[in-house]
């Protein structure tokens, strides 16, 4: 890990891994919204940051000037040779049109609302099993013992992976998403180690031998234009589903519990009126949207007075868009019965989160079962809450006390 100097000025030197951003990014975005709606930083070889909803939306819709070839800002930019453009390493999230639509359409049915509804009973039983395991302990880490295991086990089940591989999954997620600070050499060393590829290859081999009704077999048997998917496409999509499907929802569940632990009035309303939960879930997603995406500038052009150069990074902070007071009245307040809520927690445009229906079902189920079991809880004062660094933000330790 390298140690970066602290940020001097958020308008021209921002860093999304700075401890102040990690702990509480909202005041930073608020300040930028007033001073400089598109900030720039020389870090990571040059990065832009729009913070207003209008600009975030404009970038999300503009696939001509911005490419999704890489969506995680790091010291390493993909070279023209590394990625089989326009597929990218993890289709369809790293794909651009027109290939993007083909790769996405293939996966959409498995993640549609009606397909996801079928996973709800399993998820509910899973949540209750985790709560049973916690038992009558009064203090525990809800991020590790509850929030994390829910998406992890649901995704493992969807892909048809052994449930006992949970610890390995956690390791891979850290490798891919929380290593932005690594130097080019360190990252390359991790990639060369090939652990993740080896793991995926083993699962593929197992599924080729014994096909079954899961997403891995589906991908192995799927065809595009009459041809089976390229092995790199299958592997890339499996990695995407593992990585994108786990720490995102883990973060959303954790952040929601963190909020509820500190807001007895919201807890009381949800406990008294479970029909409020779907509306509350949307508001919690708006206020604590975990995912900031990224783009690479595809060609030199002027974006609202900013001279963007091909290859510049652009952070796409949907969580900042969700706090824009021009779009959301009292944007800084969590209003759990907010009826009108066009939040962009799952992105906007063609890359709308493929797993949004799954994530909503998991978050809603996790909160419903939690509130039923523990209507009264608070942050355990003796310990600190820590938040993940990087583009997916959520509590990584969340010590709670049950009352």
């Amino acid at each position, binding site marked *: 890990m390298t140690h970066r100097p602290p940020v001097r000025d958020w308008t021209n030197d921002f860093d999304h891994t700075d401890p102040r951003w990690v702990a509480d990014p909202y005041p930073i975005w608020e300040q930028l919204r007033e001073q400089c709606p598109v900030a720039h930083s020389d870090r990571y070889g040059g990065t832009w940051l729009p913070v207003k909803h209008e600009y975030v939306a404009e970038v999300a819709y503009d696939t001509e000037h911005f490419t999704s070839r890489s969506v995680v800002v790091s010291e390493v930019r993909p070279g023209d040779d590394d990625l089989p453009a326009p597929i990218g390493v993890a289709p369809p999230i790293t794909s651009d049109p027109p290939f993007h639509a083909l790769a996405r359409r293939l996966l959409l049915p498995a993640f*549609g609302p009606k397909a996801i509804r079928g996973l709800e009973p399993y998820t509910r039983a899973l949540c209750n099993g985790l709560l049973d395991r916690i038992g009558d302990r009064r203090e525990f880490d809800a991020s590790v013992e509850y929030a994390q295991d829910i998406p992890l086990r649901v995704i493992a089940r969807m892909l048809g992976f052994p449930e006992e591989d949970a610890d390995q999954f956690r390791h891979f997620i850290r490798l891919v998403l929380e290593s932005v600070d690594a130097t080019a050499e360190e990252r390359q060393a991790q990639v060369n180690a090939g652990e993740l590829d080896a793991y995926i290859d083993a699962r593929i081999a197992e599924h080729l031998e014994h096909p079954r009704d899961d997403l891995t077999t589906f991908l192995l048997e799927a065809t595009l234009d009459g041809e089976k998917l390229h092995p790199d496409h299958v592997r890339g999509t499996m990695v995407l589903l593992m990585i994108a499907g786990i720490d995102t929802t883990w973060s959303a569940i954790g952040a929601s519990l963190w909020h509820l632990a500190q807001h007895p009035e919201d807890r009381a309303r949800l406990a008294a009126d479970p029909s409020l939960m779907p509306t509350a879930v949307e508001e919690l997603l708006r206020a604590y949207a975990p995912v900031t995406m990224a783009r690479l500038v595809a060609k030199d052009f002027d974006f609202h007075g900013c001279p963007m150069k091909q290859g510049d990074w652009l952070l796409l902070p949907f969580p900042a868009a969700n706090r824009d007071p021009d779009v959301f009245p009292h944007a800084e307040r969590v209003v759990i019965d907010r*009826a*009108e809520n*066009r939040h962009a927690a799952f992105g*906007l445009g*063609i890359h709308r989160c493929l797993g*949004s*229906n799954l994530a909503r079902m998991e978050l809603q189920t996790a909160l419903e079962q939690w509130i039923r079991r523990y209507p009264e809880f608070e942050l355990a004062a003796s310990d600190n809450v820590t938040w993940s660094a990087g583009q997916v933000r959520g509590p990584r330790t969340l010590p709670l006390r049950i009352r």
Partner: protein
Amino acid sequence: MRVHVDPELCQGHNRCYAIVPELFDVDDEGNAHELNDGVVPVELEEKARLAVANCPEFAISISE
């Protein structure tokens, strides 16, 4: 009142179908469309407005 989903704008966020499944349905890929030619019974007008106001893509329109 009638509602209409613009299929060019819909990205499958599924908000309308979640809020008022009496007026919207989704296809296998999760993209929404209006039911019954978009005709909104009086008792569902409020929910129809909510569906419009919760679409992140501004894909739903109302005509009176």
